[in-house]
């Protein structure tokens, strides 16, 4: 028996101290109570007022006790379920678990066949979902684009309708407003087997984006109200630019982003106590020369790590960001920026890390980048899994068996562990020079493209129910009728 024995399971990562986190936390409460936000939604303001917020015109301020109560009501641990009941595709949100997936809405997409940048089309949503379904280290799905070849109001409805049948991994859904949120929800509920069944086993997450600085827009609030009423787990995620639409300092932008997100938390918990809520925020720098929000900056990884620690301090899961790049192509820059942010995100345990596959600072989605990052995430996950120390892993008996000048390849011990102790790459080449040469001297880029094509030609995601297929058809027909006379 051991006493007073301490185990560190995995790599320990801690950036801010409890004292510093308390200061950040108090800063958020200060902003919400004393400065407040604009809420551009009449009903939203009414709900907040009834919950105890102070409303003055569009400005809403939230007393500390109400924020704390809302934090208390939101769960820290819960599960988002695979639509097909495959437990391997379930996502268990909870301390120490990092999950990864693509991001929403870039206008462009890198064509898998030509590697050229072009507008995002409907079939791309199928491609992204199929590849996501097959990748071992990608846990949830987003579309990596806004569909350009359907009626503009229906881009989100078609996006979900294309993704849902092609992956059973949970989808993080994006929408314009109430109508398409409803389309999406109907599809998910059809597969789940009704609203009650959906609430027991939610199979998607809804994504709402308020505006920085300090504005909850009508659309963001409308979508949040829809999600909360239907008990859809939701994300409320602003996108502040340090030095532009938020303070230039990391601590300052974290406080502002948290205040923007927690306005959504308070509203959601007022509508539906206990609805799963992800604190959000894509926090990065406004590059003061290129004038873009940098998706490859070290500050993104750093600020997101700070935001993750604050969220966890407050008892919320976080909508992390990583695997993204400012590069326009699948090159060394894309690999460098994406891999480091993936690793950092894995270290923080940020609960859902999105934008894996964003290139060109979020203007172009690339499933090729996602495929490359799948490798970086696998790599990161091996490191964060850490070193297991026990009598068996210490291997003194095995060392005794082999002795000087022997080898370990026959050892039962080796056979027991070599598959789990080692990570095996899918894309990184470890062959000797001759083998590499004989196999065509491929570069990482070539292997990424080949793997993506292989997945697309061979992977078969599990099918949705026939009734859901029918429901999707009807929902899209009704949606088309809804927008028939609109521009």
């Amino acid at each position, binding site marked *: 028996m051991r006493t007073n024995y301490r185990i560190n399971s995995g790599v320990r990562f801690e950036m801010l101290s409890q004292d510093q986190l308390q200061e950040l936390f108090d800063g958020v409460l200060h902003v919400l109570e004393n400065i407040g936000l604009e809420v551009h939604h009449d009903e939203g303001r009414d709900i907040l007022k009834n919950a105890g917020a102070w409303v003055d015109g569009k400005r809403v301020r939230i007393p500390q006790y109400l924020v704390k109560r809302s934090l208390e009501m939101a769960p820290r641990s819960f599960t988002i379920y695979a639509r097909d009941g495959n437990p391997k595709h379930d996502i268990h949100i909870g301390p120490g678990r990092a999950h990864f997936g693509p991001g929403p809405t*870039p206008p462009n997409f890198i064509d898998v066949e030509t590697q050229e940048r072009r507008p995002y089309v409907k079939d791309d949503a199928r491609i992204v979902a199929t590849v996501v379904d097959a990748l071992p280290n990608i846990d949830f799905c987003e579309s990596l684009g806004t569909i350009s070849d359907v009626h503009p109001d229906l881009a989100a409805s078609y996006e979900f309708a294309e993704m849902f049948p092609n992956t059973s991994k949970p989808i993080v859904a994006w929408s314009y407003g109430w109508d398409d949120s409803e389309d999406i929800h109907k599809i998910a509920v059809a597969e789940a087997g009704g609203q009650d069944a959906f609430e027991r086993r939610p199979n998607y997450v809804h994504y709402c984006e308020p505006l920085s600085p300090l*504005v909850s*827009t009508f659309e963001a609030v409308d979508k949040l109200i829809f999600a909360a009423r239907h008990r859809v787990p939701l994300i409320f995620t602003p996108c502040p630019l340090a030095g532009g*639409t938020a303070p230039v300092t990391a601590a300052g932008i974290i406080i502002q982003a948290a205040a923007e997100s927690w306005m959504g938390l308070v509203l959601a918990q007022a509508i539906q106590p206990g609805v799963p809520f992800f604190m959000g925020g894509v926090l990065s720098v406004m590059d003061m020369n290129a*004038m873009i929000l940098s998706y490859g900056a070290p500050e993104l990884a750093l600020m997101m790590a700070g935001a993750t620690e604050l969220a966890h301090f407050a008892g919320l899961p976080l909508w992390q960001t990583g695997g993204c790049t400012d590069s326009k192509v699948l090159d060394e820059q894309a690999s460098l920026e994406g891999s480091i942010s993936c690793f950092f995100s894995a270290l923080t345990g940020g609960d859902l890390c999105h934008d894996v596959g964003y290139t060109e600072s979020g203007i172009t989605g690339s499933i090729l980048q996602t495929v490359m990052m799948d490798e970086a995430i696998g790599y990161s996950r091996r490191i964060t899994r850490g070193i297991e120390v026990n009598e068996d892993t210490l291997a003194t008996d095995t060392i005794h068996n082999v002795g000087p000048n022997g080898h370990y390849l026959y050892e039962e011990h080796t056979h027991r562990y070599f598959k789990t102790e080692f990570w095996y790459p899918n894309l990184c080449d470890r062959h000797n020079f001759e083998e590499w040469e004989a196999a065509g001297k491929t570069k990482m880029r070539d292997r990424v493209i080949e793997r993506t094509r292989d997945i697309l030609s061979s992977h078969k995601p599990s099918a949705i129910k026939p009734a859901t297929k029918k429901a999707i058809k009807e929902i899209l027909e009704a949606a088309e009728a809804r927008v028939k006379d609109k521009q």
Partner: protein
Amino acid sequence: MSEIYEQIATGILEGNVPKIPELVQKALDEGLNANDILNDGLVVGMNEVGNRFKSGAMFIPEVLKSAKAMHAGQELLRSLLAASGAAQTGKIVLGTVQGDLHDIGKNLVGMMCEGAGFEVIDLGFNIEPEKFTEAIKKHQPNIVGMSALLTTTMRAMGYTIKAIEEAGLRDKVKVMVGGAPVDAEFAERIGADGYGHNAVSGAELAKKLVGAA
């Protein structure tokens, strides 16, 4: 060349907002003419700012300060220039389109255009197509600039151009567009006259559109 011009140009480069009006006043007191103060002092400084920004030696917060200093200098010269018959660079109506509340990009363009000598009328954000047409009638600008940050709202740029056409005003103004998801191809598709990929190029484009560059 007078030493004062050099001081003015340096003041612009340093973004010295309080100093510029002082220097411009001093130059006027020395009997220099408004047109020369503008072209040999302020504009020289601002051109250098543009060069340094492009080479990566200056950053946006600094450029904006220079633009603000430029604007302060021009304000002082405006009445004199008008009296001497030297025209303003032009007039611009700016706005973030309907459904979009993103302000910052459009504000940057406004500040840069003011720095380039334009008179800027900023309509704000979430501007309906009709508001744009009304503003054109009222202010008679040379250029209408539209901004959108979202893929979801960039469509409103097309609607606004249509509204301007329907109001019979399209040939009275040049239309320029910008914003993260916007590109030259999109600008062409909706029938805009130009696309600026950031605030600095927006101001340069504006100058080109009025034939001042």
